[in-house]
């Protein structure tokens, strides 16, 4: 009996000793890149980004040791369950190597054996982000019902996140489409749906809560995009419905039985409707102004019969001129990219870069609600040459959807379901306007990304950059939303057909 117990005791002690000590020893080198999560191998980052903390993708790895050295000097070292870089040390190293690169050497311990992998680069762009952070909505990837959701702002230099407003502030409300004017938080709009519905317009230091629906319009203001001048904002109005798949590893198809685009005058609270962009048998959607404000981009498709012809609603990209001084649209709509020219696929979410050179859009087999389309990809239109191409350096086999540019047009962000096919995550990518090439995108950094993203049961939605922190008074906003006071909008009709 004593022999059995002592053998067991020795075995337990040896077992404990053979588990990884925190520093690498008896390291075996392999000539392969480490499989890390998030995949930051070869990404290009701005100098002011938060630390790219990461874990090994293999859950059985018990410890990781990372040496980081800069091509222009400096180094740092971390060791632990995951690579958790000190924020200040990280910023110092990355700023020192702006325009150069970092080399990361990873050792990982699994079953008591340390393995050293081939070093991988992280490139530090010479161009800053030019933005303080990002804003987004977080909501579960649900069907018809929704639980907790909120609009949030996140500093990109740190891991700090703050709620702009959450739907606990006014129970039962749905909030969406937070859109700033060229990332400037002094001017933004977002929607509230539910019992106390409203469209909230923040401008000139004041909040205006517009009545959610306009009787003449027949619906609510939906997808917004600000005119750079700040007085006007384009919206779509959509009668949206959902259908649900029984198979094909798809879940939902979101479609509009009708949709139109219009321009809203924030000064006079007037909806400027024009039949040129509100045609009877056509669905206009996803408006966006050009950076000089002279053009209004949108997508349009001939309306189909649902559900039988659900896969025939394919949008083309159009634009019409807009005169800010008179608030008038031009006489003619130009078609920039026809659906037929892209194998009959459907374009949506046009987003011109702020330097006016490019326009990014999403392409899917049909429809416009691309987050539920695994085949949806980001495409880039060169506005000078008129050529479109898929952003193959960014796209995956899963849905890449909603995107926005930084104001210096050197970076863009987008939502992607590449992680698991369901929960949308926020990625940032560098962009070179001279070549029109994007860098490998990187996932929004978190302090412990493996734990955070694995346990997060919410998706990132409608993200955008933000030039500064917004720091709203959520309590006061909740009070205003609960208040019954709303501003009515007028409609000014222009008939061209």
């Amino acid at each position, binding site marked *: 009996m004593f022999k059995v117990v002592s053998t067991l005791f020795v075995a337990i002690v040896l077992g404990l000793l053979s588990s990884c000590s925190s520093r690498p020893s008896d390291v075996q080198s392999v000539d392969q890149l480490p499989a890390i999560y998030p995949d930051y191998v070869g990404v290009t980052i701005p100098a002011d980004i938060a630390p790219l903390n990461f874990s090994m993708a293999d859950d059985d790895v018990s410890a990781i040791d990372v040496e980081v050295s800069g091509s222009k000097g400096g180094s740092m070292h971390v060791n632990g369950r995951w690579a958790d870089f000190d924020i200040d040390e990280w910023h110092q190293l990355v700023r020192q190597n702006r325009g150069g690169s970092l080399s990361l050497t990873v050792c990982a311990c699994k079953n008591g054996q340390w393995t050293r992998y081939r070093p991988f680069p992280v490139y530090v762009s010479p161009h800053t982000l030019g933005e303080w952070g990002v804003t987004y909505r977080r909501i*579960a990837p649900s069907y018809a019902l929704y639980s*907790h959701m*909120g609009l949030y702002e996140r500093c990109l230099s740190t891991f700090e996140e703050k709620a702009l407003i959450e739907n606990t502030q006014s129970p039962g409300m749905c909030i969406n489409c937070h859109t700033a004017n060229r990332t400037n938080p002094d001017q933004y709009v977002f929607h509230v749906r539910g019992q106390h519905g409203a469209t909230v317009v923040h401008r000139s230091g004041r909040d205006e809560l517009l009545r959610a629906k306009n009787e003449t319009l027949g619906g609510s203001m939906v997808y917004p995009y600000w005119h750079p001048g700040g007085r006007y904002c384009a919206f779509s109005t959509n009668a949206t419905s959902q259908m649900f*798949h029984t198979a094909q590893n798809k879940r939902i198809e979101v479609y509009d039985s009708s949709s139109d685009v219009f321009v809203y005058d924030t000064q006079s609270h007037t909806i400027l409707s024009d039949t040129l962009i509100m045609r009877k048998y056509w669905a206009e959607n996803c408006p966006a102004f050009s950076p000089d404000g002279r053009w209004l981009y949108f997508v349009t498709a001939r309306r189909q019969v649902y559900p039988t012809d*659900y896969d025939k609603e394919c949008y083309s990209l159009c634009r019409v001129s807009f005169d800010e001084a008179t608030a008038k649209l031009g006489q003619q709509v130009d078609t920039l990219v026809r659906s037929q020219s892209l194998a009959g696929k459907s374009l949506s979410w046009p987003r011109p870069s702020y330097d006016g050179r490019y326009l990014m859009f999403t392409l899917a087999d049909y429809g416009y609600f691309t987050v539920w389309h695994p085949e949806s990809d980001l495409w880039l239109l060169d506005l000078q040459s008129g050529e479109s191409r898929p952003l193959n350096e960014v796209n995956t086999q899963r849905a890449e959807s909603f995107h926005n540019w930084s104001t210096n047009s050197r970076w863009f962000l987008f939502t992607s379901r590449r992680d*698991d*096919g369901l929960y949308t995550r926020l990625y940032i990518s560098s962009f070179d306007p001279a070549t029109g090439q994007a860098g490998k995108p990187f996932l929004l950094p978190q302090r412990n990304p493996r734990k955070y993203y694995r346990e997060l049961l919410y998706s990132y939605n409608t993200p955008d950059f933000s030039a500064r922190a917004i720091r709203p008074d959520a309590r006061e906003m909740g009070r205003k939303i609960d208040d019954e006071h709303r501003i009515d909008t007028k409609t000014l009709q222009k008939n061209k057909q």
Partner: protein
Amino acid sequence: MANISKFLRAHWQQAVSVFLGLCAFCYWYLLCPHVLAGREQTQLFLWDWPYLLSRLAQPSGLARYLGEFLTQFFYLVPLGALVVSLLIVAVQRLSLKLFLRCGVSFRRLAVLLSLLPALLVWWLLMQTNVPMTLPVALTLQLWLLDVLSAHFKASRIKLFTLLISLLIPIAYWLLGPVAILLALLPLFHTSQGSLLSLCLSLLFAACVVGSSYLVPYPLKQLARGIDYYWPDAHHFGTTEEMHYDLLLRQQNWDALVRLAKKTPPPSRACDNALRLALYHTGQLPEEELNACLVESQRVLSSQVSAFIMSEVYMNMGMVNMAQRAAFEAMESISNYNKSARALRRLTETAVVTGQNEVARKYISILSKTLFYRGWAQRMLPLVNHPEQLDRHPYYGKLRRMYAQTSDVFFI
């Protein structure tokens, strides 16, 4: 017999408590097991620090955390009945001590009075729109009042006033608006009680108003207590639906058919559950079972209905529809909790439809629960080795059905 009678007379107060507990246990175990099961599926209690911290970050946080801690045991109905009956007895015993300390000298009257708070908690637990937060908060508050009353001395009134002043904001943050009872304590112990209680009540009100600047909840909800009750209870479902749901989960088809004879199906979902039971007992042909697929939107009329339909659809091999029903059930929970039961179903549908990374995510989360951990760990090999799925007697069959299912739309 005489000895027993003598014993009971000597310990009659304890006998009252034991009798109360036994009655509560029998009631919840024999008559209302479905209500316990219905409560359990409205939460996802995780055994990790972030979950605890997320609860403590809001008023009523400790009460809510402990309430959810206890509710997880409702997964096993006998254990749930025991937990509930112990809670009711605890309220009764604490109330008795409190009444005696507050000057009710006639012991039999005190015992009788002590049954009132216990019966109040019993009644609260029967209300499907009252989660465990409020009963737990009341229990803890009673305990705190009892401790303070035990040490209250009129000669040390200033010290106790200071102590209560310090305790009110702490108790409010941890337990919620029941903390106002602390403000009423001086009424029973000193002649200056009215003025003191008024001042302490104002302090309590200031705490409530102050908390509205710290947490994203409107003032009126903070005043009535976060998670004390759910105003939109009609979304939850009726106790009759819960009864159908429990029998459906247990696949107790005969009992379900018998229940329907006594309590006709109160909703379309329950009607579909009955159809399934009749099919399994050979009383309904298979072709008539397809009527369950009609009006898939209207049939999800409540959270419990959605859980029922998830079971029905899964039983019929309609995996996408089962997935949707489970997701809707989870997203309809009034206090925005997630649901372990729903996540379990969503893990299954993710495995069958090949969404392995999603399944792995849910398994990772369920591995932090007490009662779903084992099941989650048993599912992991299927996720890590999808080729084993085809050999699985249940999921393999579902996968083959799914592969042959035509893609049509349902609304």
